[in-house]
């Protein structure tokens, strides 16, 4: 099996194991963005696990900070810190807080957890890159429910106003938030037309779990001359674990020991 697929599978297993161990955390939204992060960290981004704060590095901001287990599993797989640390998710004294802390975890570029704030910070990072005439890119991952936050659109307006073509946002369009389907709770649709109206390049990815589709979208995004780009990815919340898939109930709770075993068996199959 190809390297990226294999890496994604290992990351999924780590997500399930660590949230199971902690008996708390957010499996659904972690599993839905695995391919996006795997591609970014193992193919796209210029990052150095030996020098996590290198000035010229590409940046990544997890605006949907509750998917911290995904970011931690990816950073550990990349070698930013030892994989054993993953066992300490959400434990007292651990570097792996419930939501990412940039001062505790090597490789985390921004502390997040309060929805909407990550894209705002990412916009500032992209502007900083422009001021310093650097050519790094800033990637940011948003939830589709997160798009309901007004701050997202304040940032979106600023990013196009300042022509931040170095800013590339992903929307994990898994169709669910905590209280149910996003169109039932508070519809953010149409997502593409909204971003277009805010002056962004919009790329739709039919299957956000397909590396080829994601790769093509990023290639186009990187060529943008004067606009930020959003890549809206259709995904499955809880992807890879049958009982979690498309189920809002698995947004923010840990699987029990038996469920962990079942999930791991499915992921290994």
């Amino acid at each position, binding site marked *: 099996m190809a390297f990226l697929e294999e890496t994604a599978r290992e990351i999924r297993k780590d997500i399930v194991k660590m949230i199971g161990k902690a008996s708390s955390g957010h499996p659904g939204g972690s599993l839905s963005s695995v391919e996006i992060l795997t591609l970014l960290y193992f193919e796209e981004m210029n990052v150095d696990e030996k020098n996590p704060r290198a000035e010229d590095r590409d940046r990544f901001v997890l605006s949907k900070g509750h998917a911290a287990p995904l970011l931690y599993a990816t950073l550990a797989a990349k070698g930013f810190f030892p994989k054993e640390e993953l066992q300490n998710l*959400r*434990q*007292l004294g651990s570097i792996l807080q*419930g939501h990412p*802390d940039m001062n505790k975890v090597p490789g985390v570029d921004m502390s997040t957890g309060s929805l909407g704030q990550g894209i705002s910070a990412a916009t500032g990072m992209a502007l900083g890159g422009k001021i310093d005439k650097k050519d790094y890119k800033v990637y940011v991952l948003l939830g589709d*429910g997160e798009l309901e936050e007004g701050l997202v659109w304040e940032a979106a307006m600023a990013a196009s106003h300042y022509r931040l073509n170095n800013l590339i946002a992903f929307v994990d369009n898994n169709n669910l938030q905590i209280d149910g389907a996003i169109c039932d709770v*508070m519809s953010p649709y149409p997502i593409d037309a909204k971003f277009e109206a805010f002056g962004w390049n919009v790329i739709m990815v039919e299957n956000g779990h397909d590396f080829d589709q994601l790769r093509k979208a990023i290639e186009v995004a990187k060529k943008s001359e004067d606009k930020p780009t959003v890549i809206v990815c259709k995904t499955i919340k809880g992807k890879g674990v049958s009982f979690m898939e498309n189920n809002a109930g698995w947004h923010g709770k840990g699987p029990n020991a038996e469920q962990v075993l079942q999930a791991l068996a499915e992921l290994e199959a």
Partner: protein
Amino acid sequence: MAEMKSTRQAYGEYLVELSNKIENLVVLDADLSGATKTNIFAKECPDRHFNVGIAESNLMGMAAGLATTGKIPFASTFAIFGAGRAYEIVRNSICYPKLNVKIALTHSGISVGEDGASHQAIEDITLMRVIPNMTVLCPADAIETRKMMDAAIAIDGPVYIRLGRSDVPVIFDEDYEFEVGKAGLLKTGRDVTIIAVGLMVGPALEAAELLKAEGISAQVINMGSIKPIDVDAIEEAAIKTGAIVTAEEHSIIGGLGGAVAEVLCEVAPVPMERVGIKDIFGQSGKVAPLMEKYGLTAKDIVAAAKKVIERKR
């Protein structure tokens, strides 16, 4: 063992009861109705429950607008988002025009647990207390939660009710009476007064027992009404016991400790110690070890009591 129940659970359940009596009551939430427990109300009264999505600023703005049409909105989300993200809307759209909005925020303090610092509001009492026209209440248990909701409805204006995530023992019984601006004397004593609020009331009572075993007579006051605060009760306690300890699951800056200190130095300056979060952020962890780590146990109150008594001499 006392019955255990979280104040958020009591809130969700009592909303349903209130809705039968109060026709114009509406409830607003921001995609956290399962956690704030307003989903209990949503199930019974789907027409009067509005989920605005992940949009806390709009939650407060819409509550203000609804209040102008004669509704009595209860607006709920986590304390960090309702008091934090939406702060200026609460100030300018709810408190400045003195609109009849009840802001009931859950997941206050570090007893949020595993979600960590980003989700643990330790500043909300300070933030809400400092706004003119605002009333600030924080119940110690499920029964006080209900009494405070009644009291909040009796007020024509903004009220903040601070609620918690974790289960706490039910310490009051059904005939408990709560009055806005009045403290509750739970235990009389001579040597020191412990003034506690919210989930620190339990540990305060426990601390009084531990002190008694060492021959120290402590009195315990429940200050569920943080604003308006009971100036007379504080003055009386200061004069009688000559030493005050405050206990809260909140920053020691500007919360209950701050409010009591403001009163004390104006009306009856006596030595005082503040048990609370010492101007640092929380972190992820299980609730009991967190409370221990951040110095929020009966033991910590005992230590503060001894220290403050020492300072009397």
